[in-house]
């Protein structure tokens, strides 16, 4: 990137925002690193020991494999969603972190996009953590699944963008409950994580195709299994890139009005 004499380059500005979040997150690496590894462990132990043995093989893999490969991307979704709803809201309204940042040579767009990139990074890290656990259990092959964090990153970015747009509307922190219970929980159930969406009635399948989680789960499952490649996955990728760009653009616009009066 070209060196700008008037103020730091765009890459440097986005990087500095990322660095702020990185330092704050890694300061408590033990307590912050605990959930991404433990959550999938608990879930798989329960499902693997209990549930999975009653479910016969389907769609070319064991039920445990199906669940495990779905979990990789929902984990990225949840971490990015928490980061950019409660996390962003607290920084915005209670800690006034952005007021401090905006006094430095950063624009609102730099701060918001830098934050989304950080949430994407957390998505990559969380999906990687799930991969480590499920490959340690021999459910998938670690070495053929090494592209997983990239899809985790894009998934984190997608849900960061949506969460930031939500945050731009929210005046009371408890209103995030509507988002988590009203959108994220149903998506976790009905977007192909727990069972294939082809089991849904036709009309609901269309709804599922419109929801954002369906696409990273479908793409992620193929990438983690390193099999089942098909061209239609490009459509999932296209959906993710388009929705991320449009929603992030709107989030920046709305947060600009919130941060700069």
């Amino acid at each position, binding site marked *: 990137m070209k060196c700008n004499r008037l*103020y730091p380059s765009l890459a440097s500005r986005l990087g500095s925002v990322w660095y*702020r979040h990185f330092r704050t997150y890694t300061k408590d690496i033990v307590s912050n690193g605990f959930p991404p590894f433990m959550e999938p462990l608990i879930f798989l132990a329960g499902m693997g020991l209990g549930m999975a043995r009653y479910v016969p093989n389907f769609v070319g893999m064991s039920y445990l494999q199906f669940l495990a490969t779905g979990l990789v991307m929902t984990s990225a979704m949840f971490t990015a969603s928490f980061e950019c709803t409660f996390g962003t809201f607290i920084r915005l309204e209670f800690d*006034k*972190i952005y007021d401090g940042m905006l*006094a430095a*040579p950063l624009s609102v767009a730099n701060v918001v996009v830098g934050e989304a990139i950080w949430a994407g990074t957390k998505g990559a890290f969380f999906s990687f953590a799930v991969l480590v656990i499920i490959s340690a259990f021999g459910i998938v092959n670690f070495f053929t699944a090494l592209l997983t964090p990239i899809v985790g990153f894009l998934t984190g970015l997608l849900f960061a963008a949506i969460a930031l747009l939500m945050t731009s509307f929210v005046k009371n922190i408890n209103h995030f409950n509507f988002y988590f219970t009203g959108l994220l929980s149903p998506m976790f159930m009905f977007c192909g994580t727990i069972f294939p969406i082809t089991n849904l009635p036709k009309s609901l399948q269309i709804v599922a195709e419109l929801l954002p989680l369906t696409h990273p789960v479908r793409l992620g499952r193929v990438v983690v299994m390193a099999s089942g490649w098909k061209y239609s996955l490009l459509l999932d990728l296209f959906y993710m890139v388009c929705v991320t760009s449009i929603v992030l653009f709107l989030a920046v616009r709305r947060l600009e009005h919130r941060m*700069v009066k």
Partner: protein
Amino acid sequence: MPKNAIEVDHLFKTYADGTTAVDDVSFRIPEGTCFGFLGPNGAGKTTLMKMLFGMVRRDCRKETHVSVFGFDPARNELAIKHLSGVVPQDDNLDAEMNVSANLLIYSKFYGLPSKETRLRIAELLDFMELKEKSESKVNDLSGGMKRRLVIARALLNKPRLLILDEPTTGLDPQVRQVIWDKARSLKKEGVTILLTTHYMEEAYQIADSIIIMDKGKRVIEGSPRELLSKGIESWVLEVLDPETMGASGETFSEGCLSPGVRREDGNSRSQFFSDHPETLRELASRLPSGATHVRPTNLEDLFLRATGRQLNEMQ
């Protein structure tokens, strides 16, 4: 003639809810001087400052012209912020990080290289007398230390303009003296300082020039000393309990006073202003001793006179 760091002509700001925070304010700030904005809460001081670095959007008007080191904040806020350091009214430090990490993280926003930064941080902690606290958590710092840390943070990039928004509100007298002392030494190094405050004392200590604002408008402008000599009589007699004037209260009414004496009542006290202390002492001698007090006027009297005695709804 010295170059102006800041030039502002006909600046207006009306918020979305319809309140006019800044109403046609113009001023020039020569480089290397300290310029103070005084006014009660809600006078528009903070809004005005925030418009200079793009944290508040100004009203779009043809006659408005704003230049900070030749840059217009509406178009080039980043260039302005790169040349400035801002000490906001509230300490918005990263409470989760320790003192030196706060400075290190903030230095990245300016794109400062790590090696240079470590030296700069050590230098600033020394300058702001926080050396022993470099590994302390922000939450363990006293109010005065937090304030000094915010000032150190604003100096990381060696700014040419330092914006201080009520830098010493709520701090004890010793810390205030330290902060004023630092401000003066920065000014000597050629840093332009923009200050908002409602302490007259503070403006008198560090500002070369002040504007008193009220309800978004400029009320008066000048150097603190000049304003005192021109804006208000030199002496005041204060009667803290007007009841003591008792039956003779009549003789103290405006019409009966000697020429050049002005009476003002408010906040359950009466004040008599005059350029001649003898006149006031003579007046005082007619009242019970101990009930009166004759002293030179200060900026506070001027401020109260300029902005009116009634509290406005924002205070």
